[in-house]
C-alpha cells in the first residue's frame, strides 16, 4: 500500500479508490438504508462491497480483510446493535484489524449511541441523517486510515 504514495519525480500510481464494506449484521431484513447508502457511496466515487443480509460479525470481518476495506459500515434495524457490534469489535481486535474504522446506522436509542462509541464505533447515523453527511464522515475516516498506513510504512 505504501507504493501508492505520491512522490515527486517518480511514476505516480493511480490512487486506489476508498473501499467500504456495507454490511447487514444480525438477522433483520431491513436493507433499504444499507442499499441507499451503498449507492450514494458508489456515486461519490467509493468502491463498495455490499454483503447482503444476515451476516455474522466474523463474516463481516473476513469480508473487510479480503477486500482490504478502508471503512466498515454496519446497518442494523433489529434492536440487537449492542450485541452484534460488540462481537464485531472483538472480532476485529482478534484478527488484528481494529485499524478499520466502523460506523453504524439504524433505529438506535440515543443512550445506545454513547455505548456504541465507547466500544470504538466512530459514528452512529440515525434515520434522517443526510447522505452528504454520511459520505463526508466515511471519506474522512477512510482518509485517516490511509494516512496512518502511509505513515507507518
Amino acid at each position: 500500500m505504501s507504493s501508492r504514495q505520491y512522490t515527486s519525480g517518480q511514476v505516480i500510481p493511480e490512487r486506489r479508490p476508498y473501499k467500504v464494506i456495507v454490511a447487514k449484521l444480525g438477522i433483520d431484513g431491513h436493507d433499504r438504508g444499507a442499499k441507499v447508502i451503498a449507492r450514494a457511496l458508489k456515486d461519490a466515487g467509493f468502491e463498495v462491497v455490499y454483503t447482503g443480509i444476515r451476516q455474522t460479525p466474523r463474516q463481516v470481518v473476513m469480508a473487510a480483510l479480503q477486500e482490504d476495506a478502508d471503512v466498515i459500515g454496519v446497518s442494523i434495524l433489529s434492536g440487537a446493535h449492542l450485541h452484534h457490534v460488540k462481537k464485531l469489535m472483538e472480532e476485529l481486535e482478534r484478527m488484528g484489524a481494529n485499524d478499520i474504522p466502523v460506523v453504524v446506522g439504524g433505529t438506535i436509542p440515543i443512550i445506545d449511541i454513547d455505548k456504541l462509541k465507547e466500544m470504538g464505533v466512530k459514528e452512529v447515523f440515525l434515520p434522517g441523517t443526510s447522505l452528504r453527511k454520511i459520505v463526508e464522515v466515511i471519506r474522512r475516516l477512510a482518509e485517516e486510515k490511509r494516512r496512518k498506513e502511509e505513515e507507518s510504512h
Partner: protein
Amino acid sequence: MSDLFNEKALKEIAEAYKEYEEKLVPEWLKKLPERMEEFTTLSGIPLKRVYSPLDLKGFDYMEKLAFPAQYPFTRGIHATMYRARIWTMRMFSGFGGPEETNERLLFLIKHGETGLSLAFDYPTLIGIDPDDPMAEGEVGIVGVSVPTIVDMDIIFRGIDMGSVTTNMTINPPAPVLLSFYVGVAESKGTPYHKIGGTTQNDPLKEFIAQKSYVFPPEPAVKVAMDLIEWSIKNIPKWNPISISGYHIREAGATAVQELAFTIADGIEYVRQLIARGLDVDEFAPRLSFFWDSHINFFEEIAKFRAARRMWAKIMRDWFGAKKRRSMWMRFHTQTAGVSLMPQFPWINIVRTAIEALAAVLGGTQSLHTNSFDEPFRVPSEFAAKIALRTQQVIAYETGVADVIDPCGGSYFIEWLTDEIEERAWRYIERIERMGGMLEAVKKGFPQREIADAAYTFQKEVEEGKRLIVGVNIFPEEEEEDIRKVPLLDFDQEEIEERQKRRVKWVRENRDKARWRTALDNLRRAAQRGENIMPYVLEAAKARATLGEIMGTLKEVYGVYVEPPIY
C-alpha cells in the same frame, strides 16, 4: 351510462378555466411565484393547480364508482361502512417473552383494542429457536419469541380465543405458528369454526421487500398455498393470507409500485390456488390485503380506492368470480414506519394521525397506528396508548366516519384514483409479460424497481425537493430532548436466557416417540409434495419446536440466499 357532465356545462367550464389559467394565474404569478416549479405526489405524478369536471371527461359513475357494496367497490365494500361498525383497531404488539406480551395484550384489550396482532421477534420470523447461534442477541427484541406451543399458550392466558381475532405477522414459518395457535385454541375447547384471525403468509413480498425469507421462491409459495388450502377447509373464519404492500412500500416503493406489485402478488396466488383445483369463489372471500398509509395524504386515499376497483375487476373479469365477497378487497392498514423520524420525535404523533386519517378516508377494515418512539425501539406502553387514542379520536370525535367515502366525487381524488390505477395497470402488464410475479421476482424485477425508487426518494430529500420537518426544513439540532423520550425498557438478556431454558425444557419433557414420528411424517409428506399443514399441526402438538419443524422442511426445500445487489 352517460357522462356526468353535459356538453354545454363543460363548454362553460372550459371557458372559465381558460380565463383562470391564461389570465388570472399569470397575474398572480407575477406577484408571487409558486413554491415549486413542479408539484408531484410521492409516486412522481405531476399535479395541476386545480381539478375540475374537465379532468373527468367521459367519467362513468356506475362503471367507476357505483355505491358502497356495489361493484367495483371503489366506495367501500360494506353497505354501511363505519356507520355500523368502526374499523378494527388492531395494534401490532409483542416483545420479550410470552409473559411480557400476554401482559401487553391484556393492557390493550383493557384500553379498548378490538383485535389482536402479534409481532414476533427475528428468530421466530425466520424460523429458528432461541438457542440457535444466529438468534444470539435477537430474542424478544422486535417482537415476542414463540418457539413452541407452550409459549403460545402463555401468550393467550386469560384471553378467550373464540371471541378475539388474532393477526400473526409471520411468513415462512406461518404453518408452524398457525399450528401453535390452533393447538392452543383446541386445548382450551375452542371449536375450529370459531378460530378467527390472520396469518400474513405472503411469501413473494419476502423476496421483494421484507427479506425474512427461508425457502427458495417456489417451495415458499407452495407452503403458503398449503396453509391457505388447509385453512379454508378447516378453519373457515381464518384469513390465511394478508397480501402485503406495506413492506414493499417501506422498502422504498412508490404508492403506484406498492399497489401494482401487491396486486400482482395476489394474481399469482389466485392462479396457484386455481391450479390446485380450488374454486375461485371458495377461497377468494378469504384473501385479505395489507397496505401502508404514507404521508402524501391524497395519493394514499386514491390508492386505497384504486386498489378496491382493480381487485374487483381482476376477480370478476380475469378469474370469473361470481360472489360479491370474492371481489372484495378487504384490507388492514398501517401508518408508514419510514415516515417516522428521530428528530424531535413527538411530531411523529402528528404524522401518524394524518396517515391514519388517509386510511380511514380510504375505507380500511382495520388499522394499526405507529407509536412516536419507533425510530428508536419497539413502543413503550405510553407511546402505544397515544397511538391507539389517535385512532379513537378519528373514530369518535371528528365525524369523518359518519359518511361513506366522503372524498368520492372530488374532481381531484377521482382524477388521481384513475391516474394511479392506470399507472399500476402498466406495471401489472409488464409483470404479466414476464410470466407473472413469481417469475418477475426470480428475475429481480420488483427488487430493482424498489431499490431505484428508494434511492431517488433519498436524493430528492437531499436536494430539498421532498421536505421533512425537523430533517431538511426547520432542522432540529437539539439532541438532548430526545434523551427525554421514555423508551420501553426490558432485560433482553434475561428474556433470552429464559426462552432458551424453556425451549430446552420442552425438548426434554415430551413424548419422544410421538415427536419423532411427527417429524418423520412431516419430512415424507414434504418430499411427496403433499399438503404439509396436517403434519405441521401434529408436530406442533407433539411439541416439536419451531426450529425443528423448519429445519425438517429446509432439508427438503432448501434455503434461499439472495444475491447481494444494490
